[in-house]
């Protein structure tokens, strides 16, 4: 019985396909024909207004223009990675487009699940590829020299501070600690309750491992993006291991864990954003989201009291040969400003759209056209200024024209500060790429994250932490094949040299 229904449905589907195909062929002469009439594109992303809302908003517009129906399916954020990977790797192929984190590409490309978009990107005019920031174009969207995704969002970490309290933003991590110490326990929002020096998402299995990388990068990478901030490029030895550079970063992180709310070890970015925008913290490390959130009266008590600045740096950097910290000079820190080595960390990488290789050809065309439409300046330059969306700036034109920002409610100074910090990070030749080798989720999300959590909770000391991370990473590398992993690591770095 069920079988019959399935057969009938299948037949009907085939028939309707033939009909549409014939119809398409028959009506090509008519000028009114829409290019993707009758095509349905299934898009997968996570539930919530951040990404799904703009896609759902642009879907009907796109359908009107091209005839392709956009169907947005969502799953909870925390399970997006496994869900899409399970779907693709078992050949279920329920989705044509996934809007995901390009940091996961290592696994998706290794499995050959994603369509190579290199030629399409070159051919498409709406997209204005050159307008996309070089970092997103060459790193985020690209893996081993081929373009697989279209960026919809720009992500890296910055420091936010209360500009009404702090006049000189921190330049080094030592400055950051000094400022945090100064404001810890003081009332910062006029409710006569003691507030906090810094609010950092140190919760386990949340964002803590990106936060520690934001600190460590300044000590570990000084020779430009191509040097890599996670491993040595000769034999893939972990830099997150027993050496003075990582040790110094761990000291900073541990000190900061005492200069915040008492339950800082249990805060994720949702909590720290809430605390910061309600005026309870002097400093915070975060992605671009705080900018738009801080101007929204529904969420913020600190409108126009927020400054942003590139991640602090260090005056000493790691010498990889000896494992010791050395002073910055023209040779050790070629990109230093005022003798301080900044290494802005492109954590996560920014939400991007990718296309399933196994979808039908016309669906792939429609899917690409849709992603290009959403990413095109006309749409995205407005989307990035809406606080509700999770889209942060990633196009050059989004920095140049500030009208949309002012219109969204940001003051002149806040706009200049916010965009200035993003631009400074984005233009840094010493930007640190997030780790993108096969199974990087295990390296960071399991090994690094667990060790850092144990270190902060005092379960293990500094030396044990460094050893635990490097042992765990080396074990995984050997399991997966050191040469293969090294090649993948170098390939992700090579493209931006």
């Amino acid at each position, binding site marked *: 019985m069920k079988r019959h229904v399935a057969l009938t449905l299948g037949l009907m589907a085939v028939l309707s396909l033939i009909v549409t195909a014939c119809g398409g062929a028959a009506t090509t002469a008519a000028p009114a024909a829409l290019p993707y009439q009758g095509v349905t594109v299934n898009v997968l992303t996570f*539930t919530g207004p951040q990404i799904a809302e703009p896609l759902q908003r642009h879907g009907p517009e796109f359908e009107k223009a091209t005839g392709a129906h956009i169907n947005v399916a969502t799953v909870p*954020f925390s*399970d997006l990675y496994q869900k899409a990977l399970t779907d693709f790797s078992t050949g279920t192929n329920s989705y044509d487009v996934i809007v995901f984190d390009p940091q996961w590409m290592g696994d998706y490309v290794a499995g050959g699940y994603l369509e190579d978009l290199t030629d399409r990107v070159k051919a498409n005019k709406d997209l204005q590829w050159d307008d996309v920031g070089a970092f997103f174009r060459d790193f985020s969207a690209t893996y081993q020299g081929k373009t697989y995704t279209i960026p919809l969002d720009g992500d890296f970490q910055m420091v936010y501070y209360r500009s009404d309290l702090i006049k000189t933003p921190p330049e080094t991590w030592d400055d950051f600690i000094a400022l945090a110490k100064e404001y810890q326990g003081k009332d910062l929002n006029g409710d006569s309750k003691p507030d906090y020096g810094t609010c950092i998402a140190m919760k386990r299995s949340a964002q803590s491992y990106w936060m520690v990388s934001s600190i460590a990068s300044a000590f570990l990478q000084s020779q430009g993006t191509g040097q890599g901030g996670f491993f040595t490029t000769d034999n893939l030895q972990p830099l997150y291991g027993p050496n003075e550079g990582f040790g110094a970063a761990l000291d900073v992180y541990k000190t900061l864990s005492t200069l915040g709310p008492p339950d800082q070890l249990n805060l994720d970015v*949702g909590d720290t954003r*809430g605390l910061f*925008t*309600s005026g309870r913290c002097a400093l915070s490390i975060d992605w671009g989201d705080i900018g738009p959130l801080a101007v929204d009266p*529904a969420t913020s008590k600190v409108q126009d009291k927020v400054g942003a600045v590139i991640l602090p740096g260090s005056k000493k950097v790691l010498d990889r040969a000896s494992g010791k910290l050395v002073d910055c000079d023209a040779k050790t820190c070629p990109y230093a400003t005022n003798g301080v080595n900044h290494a802005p960390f492109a954590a996560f990488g920014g939400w991007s759209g990718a296309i399933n290789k196994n979808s039908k050809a016309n669906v792939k065309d429609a899917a690409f056209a849709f992603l290009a439409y959403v990413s095109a300046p006309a749409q995205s330059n407005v989307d990035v200024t809406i606080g509700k969306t999770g889209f942060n700036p990633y196009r050059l034109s989004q920095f140049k024209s500030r009208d949309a920002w002012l219109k969204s409610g940001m003051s002149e100074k806040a706009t200049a500060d916010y965009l200035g910090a993003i631009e400074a990070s984005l233009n840094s030749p010493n930007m640190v790429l997030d780790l993108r080798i096969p199974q990087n989720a295990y390296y960071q999300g399991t090994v690094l994250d667990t060790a850092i959590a144990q270190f902060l909770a005092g379960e293990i000391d500094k030396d044990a932490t460094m050893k635990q991370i490097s042992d765990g990473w080396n074990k995984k590398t050997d399991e997966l094949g050191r040469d293969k992993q090294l090649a993948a690591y170098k390939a992700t770095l090579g493209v931006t040299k």
Partner: protein
Amino acid sequence: MKRSRYRSIFTPSPLGMAVTYVVLGVWAFVVLFPLYWLFVTSFKLPIDVNSGPFYIPFVDFKPSLHAWTYILVGDLRNDTFRTYRNTVVVSLASTTLALTFGSAAAYGLTRFKYQPKLGAILMFIGCVVLSIIAVVLGVPWQITVVAAIALFIILLQTIGKRFKRALGNNDIAFWLISQRMLPPVAVVIPIYILFQRLGMLDTWQALIIAYLAANLPIVVWLMRDYFQTIPIELEECAAIDGASYYRSFWSIILPLSLPGLVATFLFVLVFSWNEYLLALFLTNAKAQTLPLTVAAQNATRGPEWWYLSVLILIMIVPVIGMAIALERYIARGLLIGAIKG
């Protein structure tokens, strides 16, 4: 008459009454305060949640309907109603089936003696292992299943009869409950592949079958105990009057164990109503259930407490309604005595 006998025994003294009320009141507060907090939070703006505890709307803070509109009429409207309908259908269907199959099996296990041959079971598992290996090696699964069944029957007919060792009812029951011992993370991928091969992903049926299998053991175990407390004499009398097993099961056993049935029903319903991991994997979009929407409110911006509160509230309302409606049946009590007396 029954009631009054009951009442005379279980009416406490005034002091006992006072103590009873205090204890029940304290626990009621423990239960209700978190719910009150949910209710208040659902009317708060993000800034009210983040800038400190506020307890009473209009006094401490200005309530806002923003979360309710977002869930019920705004962006999430379609998601909410679609997942709501799916949840209702899937949980009611799977619970009813689980209760039917499960109480029948429990009846069987308390009234008859089963003796599955150990050898037959081992042969069965052997056939399953062989067919999995065959599928891994690339044999189409349809052929494999048929071949495995054929092999099993042949084996059973030829050498199966020689095995002497058999298992008993308790072993069957323990085997059933042991199916719940493995955490779902370990089995979710194989189950996903199973339903994918059957072409049933993203359907109500897949979820109903999965929840049915997950809930059966609990139903069997709980109902077994209730059935055991029912004296066998009742069925004997019925059998003398010519009632079949089916009949005495349906018209004697089931009505008598109504409190147990209702308790079990509620428990199992709640499980399917709230299940997350299987729902995540066996659905893509159409058949998604409410727990997914709840869990999804913790995204890149951290938990959206106000949306979570609304969703949890609208999620428990129907189940509470059901609990109120069914509570009476649990409270029937002392029926066995009534019939015997």
